[in-house]
């Protein structure tokens, strides 16, 4: 064991500490000073503190030393991890702002504090290459998300969703821990680079294959990839809308990044080969199967949904399949493609849930697709935003989702000689054609159907509108000029 100096630890994790302090501060204030204040005031002040904390942390991240690491790969910071952390903070700010118009709870301080704590967990998650810390951070994140899912105490669906999410999540943790313990047993180390060095050899140890499968199952649950996706539709449908948006956006980014670290770094030497000819065992073939299943199950099942949230959940499962393609590429370009895809996906997904959240009213919620009928008359701005988000998810240019798909396909095809993974790319493009069908079904209700004749216009708070416009603008901007992001994540 190497000795870690506490002053170093403090210095390097200062951004994370700032976020934690912000969370504790707003929790304390909300429980003491603001106890008697009006709902709006409490929400406003708490959101302000949360945003200020995130902004401060982001500022520190962009101005700190570019690269350093603590012993035992406990904390490894590179420009890339820092960029992901900043992106996570940005998503958190947007989520917090979106939640200012929510009606789900009176416990405002707890809600926002949990969002911040989940953010801290994600920040640690992306900045470590140590199995132990990965596990702890992942559990911290998951626990926060379970509570966020079940936060709407008046709704039975919310409680059910949280319980399902928790049970499945707990099970996946077991798999993950088992896989990690096998990795440790095989390599004698919990540091990803050393594991990679230890397990390399001419032939793969069968035990390593078991470890690979276990880890893949564990992470498969976390990122909601088929066949480990069963919790996702219920969680997305039952959770408060903002929580669902948070799960779909930030936690996706962080989980995929760390999955990429474990697979690409820790198991770099056990990749294998996923084409039919020249097949070699390793994690690439395992992920190929999971990716193909996710794309098929997610996109096909989404066709049959009548609830918008369930539809988005299944589409998220499909998108997880596309993101896995970026992992399968296991090249610098693959990482870059994965990050571009997952970040732009998160923008669109958060936006789509944000629109649904804006339509949520205590009296009339929006759950069925048919509830959206005639929305273009009642809320033209929200409808336009939803159009942008859903078309980006479908991969229509010039929106960001299109370039994301293109980029990830090029990365995965490039990764194997002789276009070996063309079968996977063909499956992916065919499934993206399927996906257009169900996104258009939603948009058809919004723009084509006439809806109730006497429906009143929908009023949306200014902050929510602003956040949605920012998200839509980012989706368009990153689609038209992908270079803005590519320059930072390496192309």
């Amino acid at each position, binding site marked *: 064991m190497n000795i870690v100096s506490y002053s170093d630890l403090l210095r390097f994790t200062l951004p994370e500490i700032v976020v934690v302090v912000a969370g504790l501060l707003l929790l304390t204030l909300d429980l003491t000073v603001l106890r008697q204040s009006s709902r709006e005031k409490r929400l406003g002040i708490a959101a302000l503190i949360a945003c200020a904390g995130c902004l401060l942390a982001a500022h520190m991240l962009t101005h700190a030393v570019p690269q350093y690491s603590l012993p035992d790969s406990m904390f490894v910071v590179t420009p890339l991890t820092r960029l992901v952390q900043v992106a996570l903070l940005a998503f958190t700010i947007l989520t917090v702002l979106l939640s200012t118009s929510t009606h789900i709870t009176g416990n405002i301080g707890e809600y926002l504090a949990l969002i911040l704590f989940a953010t801290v967990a994600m920040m640690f998650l992306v900045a470590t290459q140590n199995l132990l810390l990965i596990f702890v951070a992942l559990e911290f994140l998951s626990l926060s998300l379970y509570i966020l899912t079940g936060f709407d105490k008046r709704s039975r669906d919310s409680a059910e969703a949280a319980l399902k999410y928790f049970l499945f999540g707990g099970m996946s943790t077991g798999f993950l821990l088992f896989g990690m313990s096998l990795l440790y047993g095989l390599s004698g180390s919990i540091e990803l680079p050393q594991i990679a060095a230890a397990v390399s050899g001419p032939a793969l140890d069968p035990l390593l294959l078991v470890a690979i499968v276990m880890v893949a199952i564990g992470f498969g649950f976390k990122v909601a990839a088929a066949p480990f996706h069963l919790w996702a539709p219920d969680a997305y449908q039952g959770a408060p809308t903002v929580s669902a948006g948070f799960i779909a956006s930030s936690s996706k980014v962080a989980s995929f990044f760390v999955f990429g670290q474990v697979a690409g770094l820790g198991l770099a030497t056990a990749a294998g080969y996923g084409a039919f000819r020249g097949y070699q065992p390793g994690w690439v073939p395992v992920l190929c199967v999971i990716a193909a299943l996710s794309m098929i199950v997610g996109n096909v099942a989404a066709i049959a949904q009548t609830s918008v949230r369930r539809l988005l959940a299944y589409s998220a499962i499909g998108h997880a399949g596309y993101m896995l393609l970026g992992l399968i590429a296991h090249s610098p370009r693959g990482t870059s493609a994965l990050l571009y895809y997952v970040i732009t996906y998160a923008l669109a997904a958060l936006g789509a849930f944000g629109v649904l959240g804006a339509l949520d009213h205590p009296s009339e919620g929006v759950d069925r697709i048919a509830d959206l009928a005639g929305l273009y008359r009642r809320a033209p701005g929200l409808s336009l935003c939803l159009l942008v988000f859903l*078309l980006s998810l479908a991969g*229509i*240019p*010039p929106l960001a989702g*299109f*370039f994301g*798909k*293109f*980029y990830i*396909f*090029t990365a995965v*095809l*490039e990764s194997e000689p002789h*276009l070996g993974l*063309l079968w996977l*790319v*063909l499956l992916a*493009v*065919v499934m*993206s*054609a399927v996906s*257009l*069908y169900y996104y*258009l079904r939603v948009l*058809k209700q919004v*723009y*084509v159907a006439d809806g109730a004749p006497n429906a009143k216009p929908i009023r949306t708070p200014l902050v929510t509108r602003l956040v949605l416009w920012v998200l839509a603008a980012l989706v368009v901007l990153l689609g038209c000029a*992908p*270079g803005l992001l*590519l320059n930072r994540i390496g*192309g």
Partner: protein
Amino acid sequence: MLAWTIYVSFIGALAARLSPWKALARMVALLTALVSLGIGLVALYHWQPGQFVTVIDIQWIPQLGIDYHLAADGISLTLVLLTGIAATAGILFSWNVEKRTQEFFAFYLVLIAGVYGVFLSFDLFLLFAFYEIAIIPKYFLIAIWGSVPKDAAGENAGSQREYAAMKLALYSFAGSALVLAGMVAAWVASGGHSMSLEALAAFHFSTRLQMGLFPLIFVGFAVLAGMWPLHTWAPTGHAAAPTAASMLLAGVVMKLGAYGCLRVAMMLFPAGMDPWGFHVLGFGSWREVFAVLAIIGIVYGASVALVQRDFKFVIGYSSVSHMGFVLLGLMTLTQIGLDGAVLQMFSHGVIAGLLFAVVGRMVYNRTHTRDLNALGPMRLAHAIPFAAVTFILAGMASIGMPGFSGFVAEFQVLIGTWRAFAWMTAVVGVGILVGIAFTWRALTKAFFGEPTPGAAEHALPPISLPEKLGALLLLATTLTVGLYPRILTDMILPALNSPLFEGLRRGAWR
């Protein structure tokens, strides 16, 4: 300068959407289309034979070697002109749209902008992006403003429209999915440096790869060109679309597919059309397969059109038949056949636009029926003689009467077919005869039917000025090209002989 056709259309779409009054939206749309057409005409006026104009070529996504490269050769300019003419006429024929007018013209102009973009892109990624931009407006144009036959009123009407719109969108998107896969594979196989069409055309892909990618990309684009048996979106889509959208779908959007076949599939993978070296069911190469499919399309489309009761479906199937000539011309791989194919793209765009204008706007909007049997007793030749005369002229152009553009185009395709696959010409001849038959049948049934004794004469509203202007514009175009085809062939032929199509020529044209 030519790039402004795209920008003007996007700006026009925004302006039409934001316009507070319907009348203003119409004027904005018309002005936009006229400006774009004007830009095309100016380019035509200054055109030197064999010219290749690079409008703009800047790095867009340098990490992947993707450029924002807009340029034009003779083929591009021909189709840009077609787009300008069809768009202008389409707006004139949708002057009477009252439902959500601003949005109608906004979607319409976005579609136009995407089409211009495809014809002017010389970077494969950019071309594909514009190609997909055109899909979504098509869906909304049909789903919101589509026309439906009278007998399917009420609840059913909406679902029929939406069915046609969804079918069209999914066919287009599935086709483009194949193109996307092929495009990514081509980019990776060429080393991943550039998406420029010039660079990819100059790269020597292995014959095996070309054999694999050519059919993938060709079929992907040919879906939109209405190749049998993937044509089924076309008749339903055309029939369900509002008049202006039918004119654009048949007139321009189907050309996107054919253009993609030529510009991407054939230009980049010429060896994909070589003989396989073995025979399956008598076919020895992809070229023969697609040629036969094109001929089936010609004969099948015409035969089905012959038995339709719905006037709009007659024209819809005739489009499938006429687009067969384009695909056949491409597959002849002779200079004259390819020239004919490109000319047919232009010619069919104008003529189909005219036919749909007569059926959808002049006749249907007045009689509210598309049933040929119901139209007969109305004696339309007397009630709206302008429509009858227009349809007669358009029909003559459509069946390939000398003097109209259709003749020059189809004749060249036939010569090319004779040189390439002699025996097939006979089958095409049958298709042409059936084409004459269905045009004649539709003409007599719709306009010169026997009046029912005792029935009151319907007074129909007279043909309005915008309709007359639109019809005259299209008629003048087909006559001009028919009488003086060199105005276009002088641009097309040098483009076909340019270095870009080197691989297709293999030194000399047959």
